[in-house]
C-alpha cells in the first residue's frame, strides 16, 4: 500500500527553472537570403531602363487620379449589382419551384461559361443586334446612345459577377443549420422572411471571406473595361503611353494604384467580418 500523502522521489520541481529562448538561426538565414535577393531585384529595376521621374510625375496626374476614381466607382457599383443578383439567384436556385431553379442554373451556366471580355464587347456592341431598344409604345432609344462605355462596363462586370457571387451566397446559405430554418418556420415565418431575417445574416459570416476574394478580383477585372472605352485607370494610362511612349513607367503607375486600393480592402473586410460574427465571437475566442 503506497502512502497517499507522499510523492515518489527523483522527479525535481521544474517550475523555478528558466526556459531558454530558441535561436531560430535557420529563420534568420532564410530572411537574410531573401533580403539580398530583394535588394538585387530592386537594384536591377533602379538602374534599368525606367525613368522613375515619370512614375513620380504621373502617379498623381489628374487623368490617372480620375482613372482610379472611375475604377473604384465601377468596382463598387458592379459588386453591388453582383451581390443583389447573386442573392436573388442563390435564393432562386434553392427554391422548390423548378422553373426558378432552372432559370438560376441557366444564368450561372451562361455567364460563367463565356469569357468576361467577350461579354463586355457584346454589351458594348449591342447596337449591332438591336439598333433601337425600348418598350413598344412607351419608350424607345437608339442602342448606341444607351450603351455608353459606363453602362456596358457596369452590365458586363455586374452580371458576370452575379453568376459567381450566387454560388458563394448559396454555399453560405447551405452552411446554416437546417434547425435554424425550422425554428423560423415554427414562429410563423415564411420562406423568404426566414431567409432574410435568420439564415442570410448567419450565412454572411461564412460568405464574407470568399466575397472579399471576389471583390479583389473584380477591382482588377475592371481593367478589362478598357476594351469598351471606359476611362478606368489602365485605359487612361494606356492613352498616356500611346502619346509619350513611357509604357513601363505608366504600367507601374497603374499597378501601384491597384495595390493601394486592394490594400485598403483587407482591413475593411476585417471590420465587416467582426460585425457579422455577433454572438459567435465568444466561441471563437
Amino acid at each position: 500500500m503506497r502512502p497517499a500523502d507522499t510523492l515518489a522521489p527523483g522527479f525535481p520541481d521544474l517550475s523555478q527553472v528558466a526556459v531558454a529562448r530558441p535561436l531560430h538561426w535557420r529563420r534568420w538565414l532564410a530572411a537574410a537570403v531573401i533580403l539580398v535577393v530583394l535588394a538585387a531585384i530592386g537594384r536591377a529595376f533602379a538602374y534599368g531602363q525606367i525613368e522613375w521621374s515619370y512614375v513620380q510625375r504621373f502617379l498623381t496626374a489628374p487623368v490617372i487620379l480620375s482613372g482610379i476614381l472611375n475604377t473604384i466607382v465601377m468596382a463598387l457599383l458592379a459588386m453591388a449589382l453582383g451581390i443583389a443578383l447573386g442573392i436573388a439567384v442563390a435564393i432562386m436556385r434553392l427554391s422548390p419551384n423548378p422553373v426558378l431553379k432552372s432559370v438560376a442554373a441557366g444564368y450561372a451556366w451562361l455567364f460563367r461559361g463565356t469569357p468576361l471580355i467577350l461579354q463586355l464587347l457584346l454589351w458594348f456592341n449591342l447596337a449591332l443586334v438591336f439598333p433601337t431598344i425600348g418598350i413598344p409604345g412607351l419608350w424607345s432609344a437608339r442602342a448606341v446612345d444607351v450603351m455608353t462605355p459606363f453602362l456596358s462596363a457596369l452590365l458586363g462586370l455586374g452580371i458576370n459577377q452575379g453568376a459567381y457571387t450566387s454560388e458563394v451566397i448559396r454555399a453560405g446559405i447551405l452552411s446554416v443549420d437546417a434547425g435554424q430554418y425550422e425554428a423560423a418556420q415554427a414562429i410563423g415565418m415564411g420562406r423568404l422572411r426566414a431567409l432574410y431575417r435568420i439564415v442570410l445574416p448567419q450565412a454572411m459570416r461564412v460568405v464574407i471571406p470568399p466575397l472579399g476574394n471576389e471583390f479583389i478580383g473584380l477591382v482588377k477585372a475592371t481593367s478589362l473595361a478598357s476594351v469598351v472605352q471606359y476611362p478606368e485607370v489602365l485605359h487612361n494610362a494606356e492613352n498616356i503611353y500611346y502619346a509619350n511612349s513611357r509604357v513601363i513607367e505608366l504600367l507601374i503607375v497603374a499597378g501601384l494604384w491597384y495595390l493601394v486600393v486592394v490594400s485598403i480592402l483587407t482591413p475593411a473586410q476585417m471590420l465587416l467580418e467582426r460585425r457579422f460574427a455577433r454572438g459567435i465571437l465568444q466561441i471563437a475566442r
Partner: protein
Amino acid sequence: MTKPLVAIRSVSKSFGEFCAVKQVSLDVWTGEVLCLIGASGSGKTTLLRCVNQLTAIDSGGIWLDGELLGMREQGGRLHCLREREVARQRLKTGMVFQRFNLFPHKTALENIVEGPVQVQRRAAEEARAEALELLRRVGLAAKADWYPSQLSGGQQQRVAIARALAMKPMLMLFDEPTSALDPELVGEVLTVMKELAQSGMTMMVVTHELGFAREVADRVVYMDHGAIVEQGAAAEVLGAPREARTKAFLSAVI
C-alpha cells in the same frame, strides 16, 4: 359535446422505404398534457412534427382547433394550402426543439421578440415588455442581453420555451426537450415545463423522462414501429402496462 383541440386521423408518413408513422389516430384535449414515449425510430417525433407541419403527412388528416391542417377540401378533392396559410396555422402551435435552435446572432431577448414583432406585427415596446416577463417566468431575467453561445444548454432551452410562448400558442409541442442536455441541467427545464403544465397549457411532449411523464402527464402514449401500442393515464401505462411491448420497453429503460 366539446371537440378535441387536436384530432389526428389515420395519419401516415414514410421517408422513402421507411414507414415512420402508420395509420395513427389520436385526440388531444384542451388543457391536457400528453407524453409520447417509445424507442428511437418509433415515430413519436415525426408525429409531433406533423402537428406543426414541419413534416408533411402522406395521408390522413390533422385538425387543430377545428381547422384541417395544410389542406383544404374543395369539390371532393384535397388542395394543398399556400405557404402563407400554413404559416398562419403554425402560429397556433409553439415548438421546442431537441437542439434548442436559438438564433445565434440574436440575444435571448431578441430571439423572443423576433416572432411577435416580425410575424405578428406587434408593437416593439409591448413585445419587449412581454418578452422580459417571459424571461422572468423561466428564471432568466438577468440574461436578456446575452447571446445563446454565452448560455448553458439548460438556459438556452428555457429561452427557447419563452420564444415559443411569446407567440401565445394554444398548443405547445416539445420534441425531446432535455435529450441534448447534461444531466445536471435537465431539472431546470423540466421545472419550467411543469409550471407551464400547471398553468393549464395544452402540451404534447416527446420525452424519455419517464419521471416527468409520471408526475405531469395526464395521458401517456406508447408508440412502437410507427403505431400507438398503448395509451392511458400515466400511472396505468407506466405503472401497470397491459401490452407486452410496453412492458419490454419500460423494463429496458428503467
